[in-house]
């Protein structure tokens, strides 16, 4: 690992010297390198809570990827996170895969962001807003649910686009963890069915149904079902309008104690106000459907969030954002809990960044 970091450090040095749009192939093998920086500041308007009132490196990411041979591709993604004031490197993704070995199929083996939903498949510096919606935070983590295992996708032989994805991963851990976890009773397994359709006026929409389940070593079963939709209208390379939404329901059935069912969804419309400037509004909703007080009476509860977000992209390599994050959590018999945070973000991609799907 020491040599990997030395190698990454030298690549970083070369990348910085070379400029933002340089692509590196060290020996003609097709190996590409990129660096992504995610700088985020959050400042609390009311001085009540959550913002840390400083500008930080939220993430520094090193990415190596390329073809291994005529059939396989490989990827290594190492990212530094701020944990308790200290930046710690960890492997985000490390896998081999192929889209050439089996007809109409692609697969990957290793560690990766689980291929479900919309946000969970993207690194957060590529999200169209700064911070995770509540349900994503609760159900997947601050960035993504990641694990080690295998994932297989098959493009159905139909006259329209329909891709089915299934994955099984260790499931020793899930979400925000700081240990190796324990062998689960049922490993993490998930599925996704995705379709795509062209829309009028240079538009397109991708929508999916998703499922994930796992039973922990303690016997607590967790199931997620959800749907996502992303629609884009582009003109001359400019994203004129984006609509992104996800809706998820989580059921937790502890081996002991009561079951819990939660529902959350977000909607993010964004439109271009100029060639390089976009304005979006994140609308977020979360509730625990089964919340009861200690004597069993249902408790009404909801958490709403509105985040107007202004994005300025000088190119695909540099994104600057400003956002005002307003949220209120309401629960019967408890005073409303408000949170208002100003946020700013700068994301930078140095080098070749792999293309994402739609």
């Amino acid at each position: 690992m020491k040599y990997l970091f030395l190698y990454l450090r030298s690549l970083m040095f070369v990348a910085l010297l070379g400029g933002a749009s340089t692509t590196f192939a060290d020996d003609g093998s097709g190996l590409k390198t990129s660096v992504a920086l995610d700088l985020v500041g959050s400042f609390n308007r009311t001085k009540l809570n959550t913002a840390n009132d400083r500008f930080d490196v939220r993430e520094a990411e090193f990415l190596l990827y390329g073809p291994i041979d005529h059939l396989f591709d490989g990827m290594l993604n190492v990212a530094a996170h701020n944990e308790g004031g200290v930046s710690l490197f960890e492997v985000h993704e490390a896998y081999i895969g192929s889209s050439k070995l089996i007809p109409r199929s692609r697969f990957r083996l290793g560690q990766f962001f689980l291929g479900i939903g919309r946000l969970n498949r993207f690194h957060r510096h590529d999200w169209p807003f700064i911070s995770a919606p509540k349900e994503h935070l609760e159900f997947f983590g601050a960035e993504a649910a990641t694990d080690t295992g295998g994932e297989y996708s098959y493009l159905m032989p139909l006259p329209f686009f329909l891709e089915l994805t299934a994955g099984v991963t260790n499931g020793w851990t899930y979400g925000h963890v700081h240990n190796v976890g324990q062998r689960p009773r049922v490993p993490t397994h998930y599925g996704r069915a995705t379709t795509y359709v062209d829309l009028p006026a240079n538009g397109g929409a991708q929508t999916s149904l998703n499922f994930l389940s796992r039973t922990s070593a303690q016997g607590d079963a967790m199931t997620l079902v959800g749907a996502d939709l992303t629609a884009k209208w582009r003109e001359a390379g400019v994203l004129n309008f984006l609509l992104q939404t996800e809706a998820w329901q989580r059921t937790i059935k502890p081996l002991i104690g009561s079951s819990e069912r939660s529902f959350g969804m977000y909607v993010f419309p964004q439109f271009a106000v100029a060639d390089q400037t976009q304005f979006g509004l994140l609308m977020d909703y979360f509730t625990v459907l089964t919340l009861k007080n200690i004597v069993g009476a249902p408790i009404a509860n909801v958490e709403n969030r509105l985040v107007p977000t202004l994005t300025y992209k000088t190119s695909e390599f540099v994104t600057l954002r400003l956002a005002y994050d307003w949220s209120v959590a309401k629960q019967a018999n408890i005073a409303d809990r408000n949170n208002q945070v100003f946020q700013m973000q700068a994301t930078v991609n140095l080098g070749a960044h792999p293309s994402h799907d739609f």
Partner: protein
Amino acid sequence: MKLVDKSRVHSLIAAVWSIAALTLSACSGADTKSSDAATPEGQLGSAGYVVLDTGDLQRTTTQLKGTGSIAFKDPIGEIGASKSYLLNASLDDGGSIKLSVNADETLKHGAEITLTRTGSLLSAKLSFDGASAAAKTLAGISAASAFSLTIDVHNDENPTHILIWSGSDFTPTKALLESERDGVTPGQGRGSYWGLVLNKATVTGAVLGLPKFTEE
């Protein structure tokens, strides 16, 4: 992407979203059990509670004093909630307060933070289902007088991340106890209720709030 039959694809998308809506809109079906009329109830500040162990507790709306246990009526939120708890209290020598959070209705299977006074020293011990981490003395706190602590319990992490502060600088480095720094918390809470177990203790305030520290 080749579009073959738009109307057919539009129908497919409509069907997909219909299935999603049906799946996600399942009613909550919450079971409601009747309140046990024999269970004593009370109020501490604005928070209602039920008494689990009456012991010798003296109860008013401004304080709990003595030995016994209570569970607050209102849940803290989802099982994976990340919350803070403001605790104002004092202890007799040898006394203790156990704050139990993300627990079930009987305060079992949750994160337990036990504060114990030995002379003028105040120590904190973290426990889950009987497994405990070593107790740590909270520096700078005199247990001989009343104290005020803010306790963050992030049950969205595994193991649960717990931080204890005295004062208003809610950074990890200023925490008197930080579970990731001072020893791994031995578990994760599995419920959505909270309460207090008092042993020769006085509690004048216990307030649930948003977490004071968040990490990306």
